[in-house]
């Protein structure tokens, strides 16, 4: 009997040691991902600078960020190797936050480049992970949505700074975009979880951007509709 019990505890010990090793390996890779995310974020912060030309933003900041995403893809590939199949959610907490941040950054780049809401599929492609769980190491839907919510906060800031920099078109585009995003999110049935809390912040982003547009309208600074259409196309 005593032998039996110590057997059980010995195999438990082995299990713990294995798990610790795996976690250590994952932690190292996640740290690299965090570093890339920070670098990309720093580059993209430049969009708030004064005297930014549209071309500048795309050719310079987006292009440089996209280069950094090459490293991100490599690290995700490494994670995909380390994490055993069907155990994604066993270690999920470890890369959850950095994935959310990277989703935000990817969606920001796509927005700056072509002004559309990025799909989950595209984000997964940019990160170098699978879109569907069945295919292997994938992008969790909630992480993607969290990234979009972070995007709305960043864009509301961008709207304000664009006005400061004399770009009156952009806040109007952003207002449209954030509204669409809001409409989309309202289709979801959210549980009382972190996503829900974050979603509650979305309305403040909408409000802020609308205030900017309002300020522009009553002062006659809002560009005529034609010029927006031209610019957009």
């Amino acid at each position, binding site marked *: 009997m*005593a032998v039996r019990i110590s057997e059980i505890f010995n195999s438990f*010990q082995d299990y713990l040691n294995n798990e610790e090793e795996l976690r250590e390996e994952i932690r190292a890779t996640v740290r690299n991902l965090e570093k890339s995310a920070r670098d990309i974020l720093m580059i993209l912060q430049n969009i708030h600078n004064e005297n930014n030309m549209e071309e500048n933003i795309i050719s310079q900041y987006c292009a440089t960020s996209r280069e950094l995403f090459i490293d991100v893809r490599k690290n995700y590939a490494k994670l995909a190797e380390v994490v055993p199949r069907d155990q994604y959610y066993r270690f999920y907490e470890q890369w959850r936050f950095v994935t959310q941040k990277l989703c935000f950054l990817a969606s920001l780049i796509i927005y700056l480049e072509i002004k559309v809401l990025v799909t989950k599929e595209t984000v997964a492609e940019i990160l170098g992970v699978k879109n569907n769980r069945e295919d292997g190491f994938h992008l969790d839907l909630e992480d993607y949505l969290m990234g979009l919510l972070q995007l709305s906060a960043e864009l509301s800031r961008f709207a304000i700074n664009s006005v400061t920099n004399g770009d009156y078109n952009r806040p109007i585009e952003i207002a449209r975009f954030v*509204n669409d995003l809001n409409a989309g999110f309202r289709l979801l049935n959210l549980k009382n979880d972190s996503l829900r809390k974050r979603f509650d912040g979305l309305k403040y982003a909408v409000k802020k951007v609308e205030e900017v547009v309002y300020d522009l309208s009553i002062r006659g600074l809002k560009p005529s509709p034609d010029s927006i259409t031209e610019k*957009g196309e």
Partner: protein
Amino acid sequence: MSQTKDDGKNRGHRSKINIDDGKQENVENMHENSLIVQQFQAYAAELDDKHDRFERIVKIGRDINIESKRIIFLLHTIDKKSKQESVLCEANLRLQKVAQHQFKAIAFELKDQDPYLYLKGYRNGLEEYIEAVTFYQYLKYDNMENWLELEKTLTYTFPEKSKTIQILISPFEYILGIADLTGELMRQCINTLALGDRASCYQTCNFVRNIYKGFLGCASVSNREIHRKLSTLKQSLHKIESVCYTIKVRGSEIPKHLLVDVATGEYADSDEGYQAY
């Protein structure tokens, strides 16, 4: 990328007005909007599926929890050797029933899913079930199984998919279940003493001691749950050991039926309510 005249405020409202302005723009507007709407409808479906599945599993987990508690209670009612056989038999039947119904239902929900995502939903039920199973095994065989063997009994085949699904028992849950088991053993030890069965008190004491030893080996793990259980385990062991002490020292002086009061009296303060049994 096409842009419209919409200023972003009250989109729905604006597009209604747009019908008068010109059909062209309205169609464009609708189209673009529907892309996002379509996209989010798909996301909503995926989220709902996940949440609903989780809720269903939580429900089943609760059923398992309740039934396991009842089985443990049933096992505590063994007071005569003659009764033992029939009680153990009934407990075994009920344990199998839980495996056949509730756990099968969970396995059905988990097919083609990542079990770790839903583990939280049935963790409590599983822990209680492990406690019941190991308690039964202790009473019946004076021994217990490894989690792998338990996992084998919780394996289901779904012929329509020709797929075999095993309920995930993470060793963590198993070990935590064993920690809970020691609490039951402590109660059982005092019960048997009340019945005058001294030999099994010593036996239980040894068993719990071995478990405690095993836990100390894993104490390096920085897991809050394990540390919490370990301190409870220590208390239980302490109680059992002092019961054994009382039997040894005063066993011959006091009539059997009073011995239990003496043995447990000293610990009445830290009573967990076992005298109610």
